[in-house]
């Protein structure tokens, strides 16, 4: 039989014999590897998911204020609106030669905590939320009429609170649910949107005039909107940026959306670094635990290994079994790391989907993952090599008479 296989068999038995300490070592390595991967990969996944969830818009025009607040409010339905724009400003930007699409939106109400956003039907007819994909309404539903009290419900809202075609509901005032702030207007559900995996799924859409003229709203806001969702032609964003952000002082153009999101995520670099440092520390602890595990088992195995030499095992078979023992812990550690990573991704994915509506992709496997796995294996190799080297250099006579 191949000496490598014999070493592996010996290592496997040593692992089973010392199952508790081996499991502790595997658990520690798995946790550190999983956290390390999580810190790097989940950040990438979240970034990607947010970038893909921008709904296919290049820019947002809103009240003077923070560009990030505008993007989060208009595209991710988070935060409050920085303020209102006049309807004329929508008309103005729509007529700009560099603007290919412009959809006004208005918000200020909710239904059971889900935001109600007013817009025009064109958004659902003309806009591609990702290249080649238009919004789809589940049959036999339809898009709301511009002048009726009708609603189009996002897929996630429909699933969460059970709204269905033909249901009627009363909106509540404000972005957060307050049972005492019910409007008298009644809306009829005329369509349920197919899921898109974007924050659109967490919104109830009604005609923009519905929000503007909702019973109880300030009549002076009847011509106000919260902002405009935009798609731009070529490099027209630069000119509009100058016009609205640098020269103008009445509105803010949040452009380009990916750049604004990237600056948002850069705020969390410290967190990412902290997690990565913690994970590295755990990796060192994992390596030390492997070392301690091997040393403690070697103390018991030393005579057995000497006997193996007596019955014909070569020095390499004996030392190989120690290295294999360490490598097996590392291999299980790599598998455990992947499990921890996938579990972390899943949990985070569920949380983000529930809170923001952004759908994260399946955990992906790339070079970082490969390098981390190789790093864990290298850690195992080094942790195994140190005691193996000691055994390699110990004379057989010394091993047979350890107390001599």
């Amino acid at each position, binding site marked *: 039989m191949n000496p490598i296989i014999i070493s592996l068999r010996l290592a496997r038995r040593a692992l089973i014999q010392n199952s508790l300490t081996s499991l502790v070592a595997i658990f520690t390595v798995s946790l550190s590897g999983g956290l390390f991967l999580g810190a790097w990969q989940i950040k990438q996944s979240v970034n990607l998911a947010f970038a893909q969830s921008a709904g296919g818009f290049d820019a947002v025009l809103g009240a003077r204020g923070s560009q990030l607040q505008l993007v989060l409010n208009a595209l991710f339905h988070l935060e409050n609106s920085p303020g209102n724009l006049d309807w004329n400003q929508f008309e103005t930007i729509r007529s700009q030669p560099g603007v290919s699409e412009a959809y006004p939106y208005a918000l200020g109400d909710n239904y059971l905590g889900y935001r109600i956003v007013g817009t025009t039907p064109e958004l659902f007819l003309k806009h591609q939320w990702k290249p080649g994909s238009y919004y789809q309404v589940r049959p036999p539903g339809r898009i709301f009429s511009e002048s009726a009290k009708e609603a189009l419900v996002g897929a996630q809202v429909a699933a969460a609170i059970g709204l269905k075609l033909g249901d009627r509901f009363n909106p509540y005032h404000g972005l957060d649910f307050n049972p005492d702030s019910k409007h008298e207007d009644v809306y009829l559900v005329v369509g349920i949107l197919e899921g898109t995996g974007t924050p659109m799924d967490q919104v109830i859409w009604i005609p923009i005039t519905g929000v503007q003229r909702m019973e109880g709203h300030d009549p002076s806001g009847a011509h106000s909107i919260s902002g405009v969702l935009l798609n731009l032609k070529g490099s027209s964003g630069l000119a509009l940026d100058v016009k609205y952000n640098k020269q103008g002082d009445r509105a803010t153009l949040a452009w380009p959306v990916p750049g604004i999101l990237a600056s948002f995520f850069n705020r969390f670099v410290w967190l990412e670094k902290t997690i990565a440092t913690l994970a590295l520390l755990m990796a060192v602890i994992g390596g030390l635990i492997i070392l301690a595990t091997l040393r403690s088992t070697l103390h018991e195995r030393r005579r057995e290994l000497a006997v193996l030499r*007596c019955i014909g095992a070569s020095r390499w078979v004996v030392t190989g079994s120690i290295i294999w023992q360490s490598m097996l812990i590392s291999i299980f550690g790599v598998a455990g790391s992947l499990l921890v990573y996938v579990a972390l991704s899943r949990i985070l994915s569920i949380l983000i989907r529930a809170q923001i509506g952004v759908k994260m992709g399946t955990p992906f496997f790339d070079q970082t993952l490969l390098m981390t796995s190789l790093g864990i294996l290298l850690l195992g190799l080094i942790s195994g090599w140190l005691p193996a080297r000691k055994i390699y250099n110990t004379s057989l006579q010394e091993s047979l008479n350890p107390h001599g």
Partner: protein
Amino acid sequence: MTLLAVEDLTKSFSSPSGIIEPVLKVPIFCMQENEQLALRGASGSGKTTFLHLLAGVLSADSGKITFDGDSLHLMSEAERDQLRAGKIGFVFQSFNLMSGFSCLENITLAMNLNGSNDPEKALEILEQVGLIDRRNHFPRQLSIGQQQRVAIARALINRPKIVLADEPTGNLDPESTDVSLRLLRSICHEWGSSLILVSHDHRVIDQFETRLDWEELNKIKKSRKADLGDRID
């Protein structure tokens, strides 16, 4: 036909105080194929060291050991490992079975180290030592006598040229001693393996036709080895 020949073999160890102490000096020793020999001597007198030298576990300071036509003192470590795996069987006083391996696996492991794998053959020898029904038991689940019978089966599975048994009955009760000794001798005889058995038990030694007194064979005076005794044996 001569299987084993030793000439002017010497071995020394460093004492705890750093002084080089000679422990073994065997001018001549010879053994024939198929021969069974008992070596009698007191504990700590260097008998185990002698067996380790014969098996190539230790290297001699000087002298020659010729085994089955090969000069042991000229062999590399890897060649000596191969020799032990295939041509030499070891039986220890404390059995030294692999605790994580079953009876059958302990035996097949010895086969594997010799480059073969034949579980049927391992089962046959387990049958021969009367432990076929314990093949999947682990050493801790066996009596002392049964453990020694597994150790005998492990030593003999590769049909070695010689079996070196170091106080194999030292931990056994009289009944198990008789059983183990009978098995060891009969299988060695049946398979043509020579046997060197080291013991200080007269009841064991007296069962052998060829008996050697270690004090006669080793020319180092006992008083010079006294403080090294336990370490060497």
